[in-house]
């Protein structure tokens, strides 16, 4: 089995901890994922690559009950809102173990998205984090 990336340049793993690579405009402050060479908000070329937050909040989600090109039913997808002010569209894993709720804490992981012949296609997913219990 060969591991191949879903797409190049979307994330990096430092000491086993995955981080999405985005960009931020030095002029207007808009963040992007995937990263852009030009700010699509103000067209400035003064952009820098940034490591996006590994944690975010679940903005919304749905479980899909029909197969897609790469995923068999049922699978769950959603939007995760990051501190940088952008929403990331992602596969959501761990939803069968922990019921999802808008606003809950989510964290990025790198996992196999699907298998393509002898290739294991690897990408990012988000998983719900244990709910904090306040004393």
């Amino acid at each position: 089995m060969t591991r191949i990336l879903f797409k190049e340049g979307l994330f990096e793993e430092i000491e086993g901890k995955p981080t999405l690579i985005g960009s931020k405009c030095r002029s207007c402050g808009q963040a992007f994922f995937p990263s852009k060479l030009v700010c699509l908000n103000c067209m400035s070329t003064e952009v820098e690559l940034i490591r996006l937050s590994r944690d975010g909040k679940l903005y919304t989600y749905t479980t899909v009950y029909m197969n897609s090109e790469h995923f068999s039913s049922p699978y769950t997808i959603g939007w995760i809102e990051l501190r940088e002010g952008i929403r990331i569209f992602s596969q959501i894993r761990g939803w069968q173990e922990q019921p999802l709720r808008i606003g809950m804490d989510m964290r990025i992981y790198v996992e196999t998205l699907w298998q393509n012949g002898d290739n294991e296609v690897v990408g990012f997913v988000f998983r719900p984090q244990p709910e904090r219990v306040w004393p």
Partner: protein
Amino acid sequence: MAMREVAIIGVGSTVFGKFPQKAIFELGTEAIWAALKDAGISPKDIQFAYYANLYGGMVEGQAALRDAGITDIEVTNVENACTGGATAIRRAWYDIASGLYDIGIAIGAESMTTSPIAGKLIPPAKGDVSGELGMNTVAKFALSQRRYMDVCGVTLQQIAQVSVKNHHNGCTNPYSQYKREFSVADIINSRLICDPITQLQSCSTTDGAAAAVLTSLDIAKRFTTRPVIIAASIIRAGDYAFRQKDLTFSDMTNKASKDAYIMAGVGPDDIDLCELHDAFAVNELQHYVELDFCRSGEEVGLLMDGVTDLKGRLPVNPSGGLLSKGHPLSATGVAQIAEIVWQLRGQAGVNQIAGARIGLAHTLGGEVADLEAGAVGIHILKI
């Protein structure tokens, strides 16, 4: 440039339903003949055509026009997802308004049963990042609906009521696919597609075509005493998704409708009926707000109080809408125009809205990563 007023003098449509034995262009030809007959003109009078289709092959328009006796003119094939039909109307409107031509036809035709996505959830174009990660058009609106329910407090029963209303209207529209009443329980308990959207909160797989003959208002008066004027014609692509503040509110629909009201010189209070893009029941409630029919938070009241019923102050989707009449993607925008023309002329049969003078048509569609959506179309017609 001084623009001419443009009128519709003829419309036609196939019945909507499942016709896998018919080629797309055969559906198109049937709609063209119906529109020519309604206009009382000959195929030889048509100077140009726009033909919207998404899932067919090359030069579908020429094939459909050929069997309606129309050849050797300018023909343009149009693709703009669910807004394809509205885009064909818009382009035909412009060619006449500008004075380039005097008389032309806009057609939308689609066969979903024979399309490559039959029995599947409609994915974005090949290679689209969100599509690769499992996005489809139902999921897009399920994501919006989940937030609409959990954050805005709208219930599944209220959303299902849209489908109850539109299926009721579809029962008495001879062009409608379903022609069957459903209860809130039927709708909620139907098969789950993308949670919380069930099968009966969604439009079905539909084949069909519609056509409209357009001409300048001056010329229209030679053919009819009751021309229907295109008071506003707007097509607009979506903006970047990062600019969309809230996934429960379509900025592009709101911006396009504001442009349309200005162009027509009317306000939302002047609209007598509306055919809007209820591909999913939830869309209709959200569109009430985006089309400025009411303020945010008042849309459920509009539905539950019967304001948007057939007999209400502002009937919405009197045809049955996409939910009941059906949604052959590229045909929808033209079919909405046909429904409104029949209403304004007083020819809508059982579903006739008494004294309707101004109608609004709205379509929205096309899933593409990083944009709100592909395209929105708004037309305002008046008599």
